[in-house]
């Protein structure tokens, strides 16, 4: 009964209410979309494991570590597995075809990363072929690669053309795994470098360490760094999560801007809804005066207004949330190359619900006060 009154009241001005609902819908949609973009930024952090450590040169990422560190790291307390590799930084045909590509010690790497899932014999085929490469499912789809194709990467850090044969395509165990990477054998890279630029051979960009338990991570990291203190290449060891976070924090400003903007969009829609409610109440002040004459209290009238405002915003919010999913899918296809994973988080949905309710409440405050305060005689005198 009450809901019916609220609904009737809300849709007395069909056009105005429809427009307001549309506005809320757009705002909630934008809000969810922006939150999802931020989540996508943190996807690498979410997907990282707490039982893996990354060791790199303490000066910065562009400096390498000698290959001889591998044996020393392997002997350190708590380390259960060691792999290593280089950021290759190559591109396919044109520089704008950018994607993550690494040269890795493949066998130990795949042991440390069980979340990459292979079909049938592909993994074995990759490990057998010295010029073999592995690509993620999304990456392979982007360029239309099939197993057996020859892919020639152009090196930016390691000059020249690098012909590789795609031997396997991996899938992620779950949705958070990045399926847009390519990697090939570090041995192949090193062999070529040894011939062309011997001074740069036997150098490793980073080591990946496996530990048994997350609680061992800090101690193991300290042990490894202590091994190489005061050497020519000091190391910095941190958990994979911290390592990924350091990349995210580089674009802090952009993330902050997006976060701010996602709040601004809610404020904009707040102004629109507040306007609608203010107008509705101003037009109906004499009605409220009649209600008061009949004996309704100011509080009851205020509740009616609050309810009406909530009907509008929750309707818009619900439609916006429903639309979020198809829109995110379209968006993901458009910007897939920037963001490896693009999923709507449950938290986003909750926040969107909270936002739409909050807008409904705040928008109703000012009109409610007006309706409570109006004197019967004054209200009745008013026209329109």
């Amino acid at each position, binding site marked *: 009964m009450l809901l019916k009154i609220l609904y009737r009241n809300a849709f007395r001005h069909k056009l105005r209410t429809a427009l307001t609902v549309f506005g809320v819908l757009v705002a909630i949609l934008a809000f969810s979309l922006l939150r999802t973009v931020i989540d996508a930024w943190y996807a690498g952090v979410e997907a990282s494991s707490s039982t893996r450590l990354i060791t790199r040169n303490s000066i910065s990422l562009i400096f390498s570590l000698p290959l001889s560190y591998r044996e020393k790291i392997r002997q350190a307390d708590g380390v259960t597995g060691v792999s290593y590799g280089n950021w290759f930084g190559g591109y396919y045909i044109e520089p704008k075809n950018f994607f993550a590509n690494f040269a890795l010690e493949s066998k130990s790497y795949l042991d440390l990363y069980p979340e990459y899932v292979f079909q049938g014999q592909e993994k074995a085929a990759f490990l057998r072929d010295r010029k073999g490469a592995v690509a993620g499912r999304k990456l392979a789809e982007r360029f239309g690669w099939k197993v057996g194709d020859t892919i020639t990467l152009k090196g930016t850090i390691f000059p020249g053309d690098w012909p590789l044969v795609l031997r396997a395509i991996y899938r992620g165990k779950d949705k958070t795994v990045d399926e847009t990477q390519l990697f090939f054998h570090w041995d192949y890279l090193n062999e070529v470098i040894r011939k062309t630029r011997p001074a740069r051979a036997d150098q490793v960009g980073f080591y990946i360490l496996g530990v048994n338990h997350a609680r061992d991570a800090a101690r193991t990291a300290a042990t490894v760094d202590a091994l190489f203190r005061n050497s020519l290449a000091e190391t910095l060891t941190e958990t994979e999560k911290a390592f990924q976070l350091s990349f995210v*924090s580089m674009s802090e400003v952009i993330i902050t801007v997006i976060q701010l903007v996602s709040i601004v969009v809610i404020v904009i829609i707040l102004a629109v809804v507040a306007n609608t409610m203010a107008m509705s109440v101003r037009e109906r002040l004499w009605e409220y005066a009649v209600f008061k004459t009949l004996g309704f209290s100011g509080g009851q009238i205020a509740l009616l207004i609050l309810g009406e405002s909530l009907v509008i915003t929750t309707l818009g919010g619900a439609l916006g949330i429903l639309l979020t999913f198809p829109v995110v899918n379209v968006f993901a296809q458009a910007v897939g190359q920037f963001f490896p994973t693009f999923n709507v988080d449950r938290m986003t949905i909750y926040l969107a619900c909270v936002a739409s309710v909050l807008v409904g409440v705040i928008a109703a405050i000012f009109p409610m006060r007006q309706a409570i305060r109006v004197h019967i005689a004054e209200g009745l005198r008013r026209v329109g």
Partner: protein
Amino acid sequence: MQLLFYYSFRNLLTRWVTTLLTALGMALVVFVFAAILMLAEGLQQTLVDTGSFDNVMVIRRSSESEVQSGVERLEAAIVETQPEVALGQDGHPLLAKELVVLITLQKKDSGSRANVVIRGISPYSLALRPQVRMVAGRLPRPGSAEIMVGQSLAKRFHNVGLAKSLFFATRSWTVVGIFDAGDTGFSSEIWGDVDQLMQAFRRPVYSSVLFKLRDSTGFQAVKKGLESDPRLTVEALRETEYYRKQSEVLATFLRILGLSLTVIFSLGAVVGAMITMYSAVANRTAEIGTLRALGFKRSNILLAFLLESLILSLLGGGAGLLCVSLLQLVSVSTTNFQTFSELAFSFSLSADIVVKALAFSLIMGFAGGILPAFRAARMNIVESLREG
């Protein structure tokens, strides 16, 4: 016409709460629109100003940026002997062989670590970059472990003030000077002697060779000469072109982000304007009838309401621009993923952006006002008079 304008303006004043709320919505949209354009503009200005047109940058072929590039000593010497290189007053070629590497430093405000460019400079590096001048201290002496830092770097990072020392590459380096390079990328760099840095980092190759052209039109010739020389694997770019390329991805990203955001936001604001205008029309039905009865034409009514909406949007747009112009005082820094290093730049408001933002707000006002104005103009005189 003046009467119409006055009528519209007074109408907005009478219903000031609604006017204010609607204008606020539009102001926010214009604010976001202009802010993001300013950010992209500021970024591009910073990077484009970094280069000068007559300088030529030589880096290793297909290395995209100085950080990834490597030019052997022998190759650098070949570049030095090109006849197109300008000579200084002392008869030496105006050419600098430089080393560019990254180190991580801690930021003052957030405590997070960021990659910072260290540039090893040759005696002519400063002559090639007239925008660089010292603000405190002195130049580092060649052959010593002394460095100077850019001003925006000194502001934002720990431990890089004058007379402080930094420890990296197993050596301690004393900061002897602070330089200012205006709104350019150099302001976010550390400079030291190239030979000392090459030794310390154990990187016996230069990253780039920079020289001034003897004659500005000689660029194509020297480019062709260098790139077809079988002893070299390099590419030559004008310095301006090189820095424009460096900012391309980030600027494009900002523009796309800005554009998609404002399109979505403006939908919200247009809806707000439409609601306001429809209700303005509905409230004044009798008034419109009276005006028509007095002899005002339909087109006059249409114009009056459209004008009201346009004034409203201009009000919002003006307020938004006013707020956004304050942003010019703010400087931001982020990582440019093409060079992988920290870069400070500020919001920059150009006349172009002001015009765009105002035009944008007028478009929003027009889109929101045109339908309600049509409704007002199409009203029947008798019926509307009866409604009052």
